[in-house]
């Protein structure tokens, strides 16, 4: 069950060209949230923007009773968020959705993040045990997010950029192709085109693959049927059945 609450802002830092990290306090959320789940954020107390905006949990720290969100400014909702100061409250509703299934059978975890998709994978990396590799891709060096945090976890981190300004030049799916093996399990988050490429690679290699899908949302709890994702089992709701789906189930 989710909770709608006003959470105090503990920290708010610019971490990329258009990217900010918010650290918030909540007993409930930090205790119940799972990697891959998200919160619905009320970005303003006015009528513009009107609807809440879905943002994934970036870090979940029950021990500190805090959690973090990493967001990119792309429009008016995220722009309103930049105006918030430490000590102010932010109205959040969550945790929502079905997150990643932590597959404890396998122990070769491949986390594939494209652009902002690197954000939710950190919460997952923090919980996974076994051999964990993180593949991060972005347009350019500045957009590689949270690399230091991934390094701190002691996992293997590989970086690739579209323009070669950091790591190899290419797409993160290229990295995946290099690293994937029969005993891998893949978790991916990023733009649709990347997710599709990842799902296809995994399907060819017969490897399990969980991907986090984005869709515009209103209610966040499966009531409005607004966030439909086409799957082999018909339309599923990104906010409730997802955002994490099995790669093989999606109809692209």
């Amino acid at each position: 069950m989710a909770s709608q609450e006003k959470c105090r802002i503990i920290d708010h830092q610019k971490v990329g060209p258009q990217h900010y990290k918010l650290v918030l306090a909540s007993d409930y959320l930090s205790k119940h949230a799972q990697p891959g789940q998200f919160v619905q954020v009320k970005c303003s107390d006015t009528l513009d923007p009107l609807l809440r905006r879905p943002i994934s949990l970036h870090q979940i720290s029950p021990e500190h009773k805090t959690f973090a969100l990493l967001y990119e400014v792309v429009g008016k909702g995220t722009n309103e968020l930049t105006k918030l100061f430490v000590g102010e409250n932010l109205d959040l509703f969550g945790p929502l959705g079905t997150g990643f299934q932590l597959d404890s059978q396998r122990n070769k975890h491949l986390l594939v993040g494209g652009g902002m998709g690197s954000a939710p994978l950190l919460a997952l990396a923090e919980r996974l045990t076994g051999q964990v590799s993180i593949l991060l891709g972005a347009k350019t060096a500045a957009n590689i997010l949270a690399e230091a945090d991934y390094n701190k976890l002691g996992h293997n981190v590989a970086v690739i950029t579209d323009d070669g300004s950091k790591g190899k030049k290419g797409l993160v799916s290229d990295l995946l192709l290099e690293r994937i093996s029969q005993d891998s399990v893949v978790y991916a988050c990023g733009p649709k085109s990347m997710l599709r490429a990842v799902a296809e690679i995994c399907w060819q290699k017969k490897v399990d693959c969980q991907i986090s899908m984005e869709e515009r949302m209103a209610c966040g709890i499966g009531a409005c049927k607004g966030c439909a994702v086409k799957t082999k089992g018909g339309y599923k709701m990104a906010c409730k059945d997802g955002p994490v789906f099995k790669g093989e189930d999606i109809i692209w």
Partner: protein
Amino acid sequence: MVDLSLELAGIKLKNPVMVASGTFGWGQEFADYLDLNKLGAIITKSITLKPREGNPPPRIVETPAGMLNTIGLQNEGLEHFLRNDLPFLSKFNTPTIVNIAGESVAEYVELAKRLSKEPMVKGIEVNISCPNVAHGGMAFGTEPEATKQVISAVRKETTQPLIVKLTPNVTDITVIAKAAVAAGADALSLINTLVGMSIDIETGQSRLGRLTGGLSGPAIKPIAVRMVYETARAVNVPVIGIGGIMTGNDAVEFLLAGAKAIQVGTANFVDVTASLTILKGIEDYVDRHPRSLNFS
């Protein structure tokens, strides 16, 4: 605390706050977050005779102080509703009003007939105003003759309280309102969404999976208040006000315009407890202005 109970179209309501069709799921989705027993009534999402998969995504897009939706009546169909959703709603002492949508007069009749046999259904809201389907829907709500035809046919088959939900996409809503009442409507609810469109300037395509969607939210409130005002003065059945109600004060505006009750739609997405906050706002207003509104 003030008593806001009322009887509307023969349905006993604890208070005038209902949740609008399509914005509150089947009730169950919200039951964790608010006490359903506190609501005036729950209007279910539109149900159709057969299951409908709905429209291709994207299905929603935000617009200034509003949103467009083109859900396309996704639902599992009448039988699934009766088997799976109605039993849950029946556990609460809040009346369930079932919103129905058909592609033909025959479908509306069939739906009404079947629902008449369900004692846990306290009323039927007839959606002749859905803008997001290819067949039926709004077509029945924009022509007085078509309205009369579908409502008369439904009226013959049921003694359930009949609420007819009107579309604002008309030149004169009182013409359709009168047609619905002449055909046997016990109450009218308005407004459903206004047909709107939003274009992605990078692709040149609609931002929705279909060309157009229905506009809801605060943006449409002034239009809704005006139509409620006009309709309440044109017919002698109760009018239920809908459209952009976010606060208790918004709700009071509709009640002052002549509505006997109101429905909360888009606000449920912004705040899961919006309907109860709005109820509290109405109660506070009635406390402060004991003579302004008439409940009985």
